[in-house]
């Protein structure tokens, strides 16, 4: 009962904040939600890897960056629209994810956690620096006509294209849920995530499941990378902050709790957007996220200690 009451309290508080922002500056709400969509879309694949393979992938954002570069070259050399090359890029990224799993992650599954941490950290550096080496640190951007679509409600007008990120997040969350609960492979993955040994005993190929889940997660974050490119400029270091943000959201939500990732992204997106909305605070908006990350981790560790 107590849990429920506090949930109601939090929901009410959240709604109050949203309504307050709506009256204060409606654009803050719109841009905050769009940001939230992007954050959630990037974070969900990371949650998948953490929940099932039990690896914190610190190269997560770098995989998104690689996908964005692939999409960029597909657009430049073949003239493909990012939305067209999204599926091929995702498939290629899935292949890259599979290779990376076979060559590195698989060999570190039994290693101490700090080795896994340093390994994926090193992977991230290797990926971003490979791109840096090949294409320099110059930033590139596609200029697509449709991204500047805008709408006007009352007296405020705002860009509507970024709502694709919200849509992407919802599709990812719902699709993943269907996959994990309705398909054979998904159910197997869920079982492996809960207890790899038990899953092996009942005849699930654990290694194959890990490989599939890792490749799937990289394919999904690759697809997000393609969409990311439609709106944002890319450079070798573009993925790093998203690794951090995704980790923040996944840590906040707890393992396997995808709805909580959505709520967390909304909180993070709105907070950043609100800071951006006030001129005096604009420079400080990037600190919000780091403060939230530390606060989340502290709250979690205290809660775990109590439990």
């Amino acid at each position, binding site marked *: 009962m107590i849990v429920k009451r506090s949930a109601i309290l939090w929901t009410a508080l959240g709604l109050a904040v949203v309504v307050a922002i709506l009256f204060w500056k409606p654009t803050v709400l719109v841009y905050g939600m769009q940001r939230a969509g992007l954050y959630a879309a990037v974070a969900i694949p990371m949650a998948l890897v953490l929940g099932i393979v039990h690896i*914190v992938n610190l190269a997560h954002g770098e995989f998104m960056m690689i996908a964005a570069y692939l999409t960029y070259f597909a657009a430049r050399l073949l003239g493909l629209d990012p939305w067209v090359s999204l599926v091929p890029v995702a498939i290629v990224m899935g292949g890259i994810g599979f290779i990376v799993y076979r060559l*590195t992650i698989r*060999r*570190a599954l039994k*290693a101490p*956690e*700090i*080795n896994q*941490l*340093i*390994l994926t*950290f*090193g*992977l*991230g*550096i*290797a*990926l*971003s*620096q*490979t*791109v*840096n*080496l*090949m294409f*320099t*640190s110059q930033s590139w951007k596609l200029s697509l006509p449709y991204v500047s679509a805008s709408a006007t409600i009352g007296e405020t007008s705002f860009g509507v294209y970024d709502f694709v990120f919200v849509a992407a997040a919802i599709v990812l969350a719902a699709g993943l849920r269907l996959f994990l609960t309705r398909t054979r492979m998904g159910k197997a993955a869920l079982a492996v995530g809960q207890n790899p040994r038990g899953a092996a005993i009942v005849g699930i190929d654990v290694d194959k499941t890990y490989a599939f889940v890792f490749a799937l997660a990289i394919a999904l974050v690759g697809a997000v990378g393609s969409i990311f490119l439609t709106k944002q400029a890319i450079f*070798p270091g573009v993925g790093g902050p998203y690794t*951090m943000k995704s*980790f*923040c959201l996944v*840590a906040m939500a707890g393992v396997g709790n995808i709805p909580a990732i959505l709520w967390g992204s909304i909180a993070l997106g709105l907070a950043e957007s609100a800071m951006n909305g006030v001129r005096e605070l604009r*420079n*400080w908006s*990037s*600190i919000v996220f*780091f*403060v939230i*990350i*530390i606060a989340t*981790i*502290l709250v*979690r*560790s205290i809660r775990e*200690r109590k439990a």
Partner: protein
Amino acid sequence: MKNPTKWAVPLVFVAAAALLPLAGKALPAIAGDYPLSLARSVFTYMALAVSWDMLLRSGQVSFGIAGFYGIGVYAAALSVLRAGFSPLASILFAGIIAGFIAFLLGFVILRLRAIYFSITTLALGEIFRIILHNGGEFTGGAEGVIIPRIISNNSAVLYWLSLAGVLIAIGMSAWFERSKIRFALTAIRNNELAAKSSGIGIFKYMMIAFVATSFIQGIIGGIQLQGYGVASPSDSFSGDYTLLPLAMALLGGIHSTSGPIIGAILLGVASEFLKLKIPYGHLIVYGFIIVLVILLMPQGLYGLWRNKARARRVSRIDSGQASADAAARAGASKEQPRA
């Protein structure tokens, strides 16, 4: 000393480092300012690598080296500019400030473990950077500050200063290895619960390690400021200061003083040449080294060598034991006829 080979690497390094400027006078090939400035850059990363390893001995991976290093650079620069400190005082001040901030934060973040600790240290580094970036007039904003004059333009003086910095790091690390702190940290790393039940004050020893490493990182920041004279949010908090020491310590071999020294010399010299050859993306080497070392030889070069040496010693003791047994038997058989 029970195990003299353990200190061979640090001692040889210190002797070689002390002789380098003299060698420059004797051999024209390594004369001039360039070898000294290369050595300074190696020393800087070496000290950071040793300090990172000191905390790693408790089982916690810090990604916040750049954060405390940057604090050191800024603390030294601002103490010179705003309070008129002398260069040496500013270096000490940098160490104390970094150590003090670590002490305050330690009460909270030393309760975290594993990935939570690592991410928090990374986030703290970013928070330091943003605060100094937005500090307005006082911290110089995005451009940072330039100190009017450094300790000396003579590269030999800067060289000795850097060497002093790395000696502080090596000295503290040796103290960690020779005192009971080593046993406490190893116990915490191996099994925290068991360590706690044996009466080890986990928090106390983690705090000692955290404050000591941050102090070193602060000092190194202060020394580096004397070399370049500039403190800026993007350079002083550059991720390189986290990445390079980490890769160096891993390659050389973690959980030792010798490992980071070896790693820093190898990678430090190699990166200097790579930087000239490949202006963009020379850091790629570090990424691959981290991945390969973790996968193929997690104990690092020094660890490999140590294990081999240990195996040799064990086999020598075994064979020694066997010959002693044989001699005893021979003696006994000789005695038998007499009896």
